[in-house]
């Protein structure tokens, strides 16, 4: 957690300052952001980032609560996204976006009034507040007397803000990654690389007088290639994402991304779409957590339950899986893509047990649902940006390690499939039906991994499949990919994890 000195800024700036750097956009004294500590600043520093102060926030809140309403919050966000790409062996494209605004939300019971403005002037904020205020229809509520900064832990400390990293520092990595893919296999005919970073400064102030600040970094590497063998072409890719700074773009990650992209591509030459039908399925550790995300995660988001839409609406404290099964949604996993120091409505985040020892324990709550159920928020209130009102969302969803060994799981399968990498999934909350798409894996025959497989969809029913999780190994891994989760038109980054696990019966798509 180093302080960023003024001297360092000048040095970086001499080469190349990040395009459209924060001071430009925020119209601030450049020294302010570049002198600001990554964490551990004062409230006035953070308010200063958005050119607001206590009296202005108070005035805006007074307007938001002018027609009553139980609560309001202001969500200030400044986000910079940068993408630099390589195709046909040249770093020949770059995209960037700078986005800034404040979302103003008024809650009246479980009703939401929402507006946002991209102009951080007092007038524009007052107008937005007046619009959001219309959800309520009674007499004005008083606003807090004092605001204080609520300090949060930091689950993703980084050395240097992304705001200050120039494109010149990114290009050599991209070129080296490309070269490694090119050199790996003479069947490679095309390669593609993206280097991405997107990071935001988030300040949330609410009518209880609480203010939180978070700097949320994100770093992404995407490598993909096409290869040709005889008349057959195949394509494959690998992504590595984390809440990190420049340190994410390390030599080891470069090698991992290049090697995996190549092996996943050429590996498909031998792969088939298997025979379909109900069968035993073994899931690889890591991104197989997509099973949990779809089979139980979404259904445990409390908004679906308070509205009685979810298949899990009546299942709290009921047995739902074998006693070896415990499933958590965790905001505190260091550097994970889905981790959060504080949620998007200033609540503290935590590690929430959805299932403990086979018993369904807790939904994921935002402020509205926590109030509905009369409990504390689990810090799951998330939003895509200042343009959106928050709702309960997953962060890092995973299953805790179980009693089995990976080898004994394989040995137990006579005929089934092993799923290793995935592209996407979907769930229908009410019936509980869910799917995920397996990009690569293997057949399992008589306890051994045999022929590679590819491109099949798996479909099941959430509660049924959880009951069918019959073996769980001790090798939990968290996904490292660039997972995004979509819900009601809002997209947020998430992680998921799983130890090697076996589902005794689920429907696998296939060609015969």
């Amino acid at each position, binding site marked *: 957690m180093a302080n960023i000195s003024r001297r360092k800024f000048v040095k970086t700036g001499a080469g190349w300052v990040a395009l459209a750097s924060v001071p430009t956009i925020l119209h601030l004294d450049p020294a302010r952001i570049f002198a600001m500590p990554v964490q551990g600043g004062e409230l006035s520093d953070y308010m200063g980032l958005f050119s607001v102060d206590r009296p202005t926030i108070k005035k805006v809140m007074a307007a938001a609560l002018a027609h009553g309403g139980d609560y309001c919050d202001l969500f200030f966000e400044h986000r910079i996204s940068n993408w630099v790409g390589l195709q046909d062996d040249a770093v020949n494209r770059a995209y960037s976006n700078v986005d800034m605004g404040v979302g103003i939300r008024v809650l009246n019971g479980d009703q939401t009034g*929402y507006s946002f403005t991209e102009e951080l002037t007092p007038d524009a904020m007052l107008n937005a507040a007046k619009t959001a205020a219309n959800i309520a229809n009674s007499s004005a509520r008083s606003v807090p007397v004092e605001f204080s900064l609520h300090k949060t832990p930091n689950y993703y400390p980084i050395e240097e803000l992304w705001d200050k990293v120039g494109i010149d520092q990114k290009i050599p990595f991209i070129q080296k990654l490309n070269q490694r893919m090119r050199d790996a296999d003479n069947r490679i005919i095309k390669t593609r690389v993206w280097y991405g970073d997107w990071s935001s400064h988030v300040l949330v102030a609410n009518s209880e007088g609480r203010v939180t600040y978070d700097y949320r970094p994100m770093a992404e590497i995407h490598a993909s290639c096409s290869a040709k063998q005889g008349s057959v072409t195949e394509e494959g890719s690998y992504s590595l994402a984390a809440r990190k700074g420049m340190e994410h773009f390390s030599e080891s990650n470069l090698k991992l991304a290049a090697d995996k992209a190549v092996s996943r591509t050429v590996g498909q030459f031998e792969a088939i779409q298997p025979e379909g039908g109900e069968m035993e399925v073994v899931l690889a550790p890591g991104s197989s957590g997509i099973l949990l995300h779809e089979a139980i995660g979404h259904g445990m988001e409390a908004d679906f339950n308070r509205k009685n839409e979810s298949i899990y609406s009546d299942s709290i404290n009921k047995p739902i899986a074998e006693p070896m099964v415990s499933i958590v949604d965790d905001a505190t996993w260091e550097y994970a893509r889905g981790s959060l120091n504080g949620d998007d409505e200033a609540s503290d985040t935590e590690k929430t047990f959805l299932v403990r020892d086979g018993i369904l324990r807790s939904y994921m709550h935002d402020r509205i649902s926590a109030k509905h159920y009369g409990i504390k928020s689990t810090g799951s209130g998330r939003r895509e940006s200042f343009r959106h009102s928050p709702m309960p969302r997953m962060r890092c969803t995973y299953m805790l390690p179980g009693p089995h060994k990976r080898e004994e799981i394989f040995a137990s399968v006579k005929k089934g499939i092993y799923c290793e990498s995935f592209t996407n999934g979907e769930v229908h909350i009410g019936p509980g039906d869910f799917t995920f798409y397996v990009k690569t894996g293997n057949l399992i025959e008589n306890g051994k991994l045999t022929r590679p497989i590819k491109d099949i969809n798996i479909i099941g029913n959430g509660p049924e499949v959880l009951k069918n999780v019959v073996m769980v190994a001790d090798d939990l891994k968290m996904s490292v990919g660039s997972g995004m989760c979509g819900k009601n038109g809002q997209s947020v980054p998430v992680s998921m994890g799983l130890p090697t696990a076996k589902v005794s019966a689920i429907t696998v798509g296939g060609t015969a």
Partner: protein
Amino acid sequence: MNSNNRKELAHWVVKQAVSDGADEASVDLANSRDIEIEVRKGKLDKLQESTQNSLSLSIYANHRYSSHSTNDLRRESLSRFVSEAVAMTKYLTEDEFRYLPEPKYCQGQKQIDLKINDNSYSGLTSEDRVKYATEIDAAAQAASPKVVTCTAGFSDTYYESIKVHSNGFEGSNAGTVFSAGAEATVEGKGEGRPSDWDWRTYRFRKELPSPEVFGQGAVQRALGKVGQEKIETGKYDVVIENRAASRFLGNILGPLSASSIQQKRSFLEGKLGEKIASDKFSWIDDPFVPSGLGSRLYDGEGLATKRRVIIDKGVLKSFYVDTYYGRKLGWEPTGGGTTNLVFDYGDKSLDELVAQMQRGILVTGFIGGNSNSVTGDFSAGIFGSYVENGKLVRPVNELNISGNLMEVMGQIAELGNDPWIYSAWRCPSIYLTELQISGA
């Protein structure tokens, strides 16, 4: 800012980019007003209203290319934004194919009124919106005692956009979009709670049906799913309902783009002029459909739009070719994006298509699934109804449909007469023979 100020600002940004060192530049300036209402259990659940702006700038400097966007339109901020954007472009590698579209492709826009802007929009009040959504909700609640919950919604957008190129092109666009509908959840058998939606989008407010249509429609569809079960793995004829068909046809769009061809990620490479689907299948991209949700006179690159025949009676006639990948391939650009997709519609309704089926599945929706764009292999979850002798027998779910897109497009036996006009992809219901379904 009025539209003259916006135009002036767009020209100013282009000039700034050129004076900072760009050879060419293009600017897109967009703004919109968006309103969204949700009603649940007779009560307003959510009211959201906002206006937003965005400016996007593409820079071509010594055949180096980059693109940048911001929502901060203050001149002093933009000035820094532009100069930094130009400065960073210089770090990129030269790419001889990067320059603005030649003016000849941007000229000759069709002179017609697309009828995409409802002038009555400004008369629409919050009360009107809430009333409409409340009536949808009431109709859903009244439709069946089995309704567990329903969320009804109304949303609308007014948008404007301006496009300016440094080589003389200038275009502008304005339109309205209204959406309304409901999602209903009903009691099922056992723990599951079947749900379904009826949600549609229009250009003109007067096109909206009476609100009961949505409330009743969503509930009836959800009730139709009660008692869903798997069926045996095997080969079945399939009818895909019009509103679900875009999920299936969407698998072909990526492989139809020039970028996929040039990057060696398309199973359609080398297939131009060849038969890739059955005679019954024609795919036309028509930018001029009156009130079409994808209607436009110029595309994202500023190219004047044209009616394009992509697939004619099963024969691949054209790819979606933008200028950049077109140059790389040595092909004439045709436009890289879709506008409205229309098809050679048949003469039977969905019910009549189903009535022809001896043993098969009416697919009312997809869940998950994906495809391999290089090989054409695909696999996706489906649900709907099992059909025997032309009659719906029972609802089905937890099934996967798998195959190869080239083969499956050859199995298209018939298209319905029922384009889903509430989307830019005006897909009809599609009858396919002998598809592989995995179930129990």
